[in-house]
């Protein structure tokens, strides 16, 4: 929406930030995430492992929110699509011996293809029906992964070649962090363009959008395809990071985890989920490891938080932030939160 003239007045740093759709505060957060695993006490392997899990959930919640928060369709089979990407990549690497780095992208493509298909079949369906459709699609995929033993080894689990030879988690962390950034930059870039306006319009009022000349078919398919491609990419990482794939990873409860993070972070914000994921996953893992005599407590907190946010604060963390921190009086703080004024 900014004119090109305003853009050229920015200095290089701000221009890069603008290109990445990041505010200065976001950039600082990113830098912190980059150096975090290098400083004690975070440099322990199990803590880096948590960081990896958090970054994965963060990235997933961003691409999940790209569909749920904009065109208002909750993709309930999200993690099954992640799983499809993972399995495709893993099988290709296993059978044909190609590099995992290529496998990940082929996996993403296959997931994107499914997303395209899903976009077409859910075209006539609205709201809950589309969600149920995606849900069953996910269940069917999981069933297939369980039963096609010759291909996936079923519930025995498929061993997958890892991306790096070293047992350290650090390189994986940087890979997933980069993927998270890519996911965010792509989705944010798309939603900042005209297309984002079209997504929001068909999500909020289909009739008005259509009489304004927006073709819902096209935008829905584009949205699903993109979101699922990104999901497939993350699936590839999942496969080559954990080194083993079981059909259980495609389970609805995994989608619920992503959904909870995305909604607690704030629907339609994209960044909310990514920001919330890190402290959230850390807190959950802390609860799980320190209160191991109380199994499931962390997930109870999950459910409780989701319910509370849904009822009492439907905007989530992003809305909270917008309301209380987005307009500080201090110039420096204002710059940090909102970036350089471009208009």
């Amino acid at each position, binding site marked *: 929406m900014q004119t090109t003239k305003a853009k050229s007045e920015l200095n290089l740093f701000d221009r890069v930030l603008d290109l990445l759709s990041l505010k200065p505060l976001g950039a600082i957060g990113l830098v912190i995430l980059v150096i975090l695993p290098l400083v004690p006490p975070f440099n322990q392997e199990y803590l880096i492992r948590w960081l990896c899990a958090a970054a994965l959930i963060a990235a997933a919640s961003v691409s999940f929110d790209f569909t749920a928060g904009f065109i208002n369709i909750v993709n309930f089979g999200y993690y099954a699509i992640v799983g499809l990407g993972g399995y495709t990549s893993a099988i290709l690497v296993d059978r044909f011996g190609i590099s995992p780095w290529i496998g990940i992208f082929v996996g993403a493509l296959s997931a994107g293809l499914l997303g395209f298909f899903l976009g077409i079949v859910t075209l006539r369906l609205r709201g*809950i*029906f589309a*969600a149920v459709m995606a849900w069953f699609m996910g269940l069917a995929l999981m069933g297939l992964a369980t039963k096609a033993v010759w291909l996936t080894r079923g519930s025995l689990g498929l061993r997958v070649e890892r991306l790096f030879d070293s047992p350290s988690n650090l390189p994986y962390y940087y890979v997933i962090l980069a993927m998270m950034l890519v996911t965010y930059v792509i989705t944010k870039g798309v939603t900042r363009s005209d297309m984002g306006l079209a997504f929001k319009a068909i999500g909020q009022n289909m009739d008005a959008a259509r009489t304004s000349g927006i073709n819902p078919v096209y935008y829905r398919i584009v949205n699903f395809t993109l979101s699922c491609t990104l999901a497939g990419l993350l699936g590839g990482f999942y496969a080559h990071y954990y080194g083993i794939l079981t059909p259980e990873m495609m389970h609805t409860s995994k989608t619920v985890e992503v959904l909870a993070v995305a909604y607690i972070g704030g629907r339609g914000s994209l960044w909310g989920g990514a920001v919330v994921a890190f402290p959230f996953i850390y807190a959950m893992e802390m609860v799980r490891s320190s209160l191991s005599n109380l199994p*499931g407590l962390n997930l*109870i907190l*999950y*459910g409780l938080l989701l319910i509370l946010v*849904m*009822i009492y604060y439907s905007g989530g963390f992003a809305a909270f932030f917008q309301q209380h921190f987005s307009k500080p009086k201090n110039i420096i703080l204002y710059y940090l939160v909102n970036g350089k004024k471009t208009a």
Partner: protein
Amino acid sequence: MITEYLKKLYETIRSVAGITVVLAIVVAILSSIFRGPYIIVNTVVTGGMLALMSIGLALVFGVMNVAQFAHGEYFMIGSLTAYYTFIPIERYLGANPNAALSFLAPLVSILAAFCMGALMGVLSEKLIFYNLRKRSRTNWVMNSFLLTVGISVLLVNGHQLIFGTELKGIVRYWTGRPFCIMDVFVSRDRCYAFILSVLVIGLFWLFMKATRTGRAIRAVSQDETGAQMVGIDLSGIQVLTMALSCGLAGIAGASLLFMFPSYPSVGLDPLYMSWFVIILAGMGNVLGAVVGAFMVALLKVLTMEYIGSGWDFVVPTALIMLILIFKPNGIFGSDVRGVLEQ
């Protein structure tokens, strides 16, 4: 007169619903002839329990527009309650045998499960749906659906936290030799479970058709404003509906305890199956759900028979997706207004 009836019957059969039902019956009979009567017996026994689950689901959707994701969890609560009621009684019976009590014990457990399920239903309505309804009704179907997702997570892990993950099951409710029906041996438990489900569905039907409150529930599902106009207390009916629906799921869970031992996520399979049923039959269509339950049961049994166990999940799912694409209203049609628009 008779020709008129025949004509009407013919018209009904010619509709999509009629064709499907007739087809299902024909398939059931044919496969029983080729493979053995156990197919019909299995279908009927599975279908009865599935029907209990599905009518609860359909009811809540019809009356409150809530698409329950947590329905399986009430099944789980039912089985858990039955387990913790039945075990002490059985232990007591081991010490002091008593014929009358041993006959009553399963019934007491199932009744307890119904009450517990109903109680949890009331709690979820009072604590959760009521609050959401009060705060915002925009995008209600989707938001309430996500709330039930939260409830599901809560209950599953609550079970794990309090009772652990181990299987809590019993061998049988009723002692005695299995019955022999059509050359198939059917355990007493299965038989009684079926009889119980028929009984409960019958009672439920009677309640909905003949009592004042039952009529009020139906009225609310057909027109909320109209119901208020004739003096029906909406929130009371909503609480009652939730209690009934969850109680029915509880009964299903309790009476199948010998098949599905209670553990945290035991409700998932029944949940999926009952969702298949209501998508197949049309969301919110209670009578359709009963018929649909037997059809889904048949589909499941046939898939296991002809394709192999484990595929009983994939094949119905694929079919349901086709139904969603081509007939999102279900084959018996959805009674709920405005679902497609939301």
